[in-house]
């Protein structure tokens, strides 16, 4: 119930790779489809063929990022697609604020859920969540949130390989990973360690289980250091290129002479 478990045996969650996410929204509609048909009330849409607004448990935000250099020189702008759903926080503020006991964090795996039979739709949990992970469904009048597909990951009616959240199963680029982040030997924990996975809004003290892998450094080809210049003038050092583009045409017989010798060597 709304007291958080002191510890959970597992910390099931997602690792989201911002270096790989192309922003295709596959996870968004796979989630919408699965959770409209499964766990609890369907995710409804209002005015779906007009000025539509619906309930989604997973949404992709897109940001423009312009890295800043110490010397203030401009750098090429980047686009980052940023999927966001419930982070199944260890210290989930959405759970403790719930007056009815509908919100709870499962002791066995740390999944944060809403017991829809107990929810009165006050929305306080959504206010408490810094990430926007909870939405009130306008048709059902109750709070909806990512269940980490709790009805898939243990589902014995599904083949074992499919026992993972719908968003992970469908992600074409493989930018979403599911596993136990409490187990340092799990694939997801190793990935987080290798790629420097981070918490979102650590200062909020929620201790999110889901981790984000930051994009790798961009625009480094031919650069000895960070690039400089605006989009159309981005420039860099080229001294490192010499061994690969040393000219053969300045040889005594020119290009054809080089060609003749090169063919002879084949």
């Amino acid at each position, binding site marked *: 119930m709304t007291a958080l478990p002191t510890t959970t045996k597992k910390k099931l969650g997602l690792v989201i790779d911002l270096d790989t996410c192309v922003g295709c929204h596959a996870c968004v509609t796979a989630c919408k489809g699965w959770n409209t048909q499964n766990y609890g009330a369907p995710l409804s849409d209002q005015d779906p063929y007009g000025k539509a607004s619906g309930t989604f448990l997973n949404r992709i935000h897109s940001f423009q990022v312009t890295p800043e250099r110490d010397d203030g020189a401009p750098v090429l702008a980047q686009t980052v697609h940023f999927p966001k759903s419930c982070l199944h926080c260890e210290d989930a503020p959405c759970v403790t604020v719930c007056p009815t006991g509908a919100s709870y964090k499962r002791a066995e795996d740390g999944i944060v859920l809403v017991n829809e039979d107990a929810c009165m*739709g006050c929305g*306080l949990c959504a206010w408490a969540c810094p990430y926007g992970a909870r939405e009130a469904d306008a048709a059902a009048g109750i709070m909806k949130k990512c269940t980490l597909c709790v009805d898939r990951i243990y589902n014995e009616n599904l083949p074992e390989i499919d026992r993972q959240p719908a968003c992970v199963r469908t992600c074409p680029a493989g930018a979403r990973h599911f596993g136990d982040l409490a187990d340092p030997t799990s694939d997801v924990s190793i990935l987080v360690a290798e790629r420097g996975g981070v918490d*979102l809004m650590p200062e909020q003290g929620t201790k999110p289980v889901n981790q984000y892998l930051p994009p790798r450094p961009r625009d480094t080809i031919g650069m000895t250091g960070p690039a400089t210049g605006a989009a159309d003038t981005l420039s860099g050092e080229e001294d490192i290129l010499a061994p690969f583009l040393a000219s053969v045409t300045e040889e005594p017989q020119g290009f054809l002479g080089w060609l003749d010798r090169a063919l002879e060597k084949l």
Partner: protein
Amino acid sequence: MHPAPSVILFSSLSGAGFGLLFFLGLGFPITTGWVAFVFYAIAYALAVGGLLSSVFHLGNPRNAIKSYSQWRTSWLSREAWAAVSALLVMALYAALQVFFAITVPPLGWLGAALSLATVFTTAMIYAQLRAIPRWNQPATPAFFLASALASGALLSGNVVAAIVLLLALAAVVAFHWWKGDRRFAEAGTTIGTATRLGGRVSLWEKPHTGENYLTREMVYQVARKHAVKLRVIALLMMSLLPVLLLLAFPAHHWLAAIAVLLHLAGIITQRWLFFAEAEHVVGLYYGAHIGRAAAH
């Protein structure tokens, strides 16, 4: 935050109602019979009316009864308990005064304490939310309490107390605004911590074209100029004009009623601002508050 009329009415009216109950419970004034009836009718109309209006805010009121279950962890649940306890205790106290002209002071003191506790729990529902830095400060329960007490003093005709409390309220609210304007930066949540992306970050495309629950509920933005104007209006109506009226015409009933109405209108304006100016950190993901930097 979206300034939902139901929630604004609830917090303004029920605060005033519980404030009035507080003074009646303490015996300022001690009344009986019809006079008592009118006082309690006003107090209960405000407190219960406010509570009822908050029920309209619920998506699924069928389960409202379950909100009594989580008092160990949830301020909303505690509020429910406090409100019911206060109303029940004060109902007994009031019934004895109205029908039997009997005043049982310890019962009144208990009721007064519970009434104030109710206001405190209400305040804590907001103050506990780290995701809304403006609310997440000690001045939030302070102004809720000051507001309830000032309203209560005004409604109960304790003119001197009202003048003092109204001025205190003005000070606390002004402090809350001053501190609130700094709270987002103090909380340290920025687009940088929200996304953990380096450099200058701006929203390019929203996740969905239209509005959603989050943007409607939590990404409300009020123009700065507009807000300053409303703050002045709130301060004048909530505190300063009522104080002037009380000082000028301490015993004039009609003008006292006007002072009360001005005060309540001021409280409602202040509460509207309390919501409208509150920036939820989730707004960062929707391109709001991105210009803000963390406090250093």
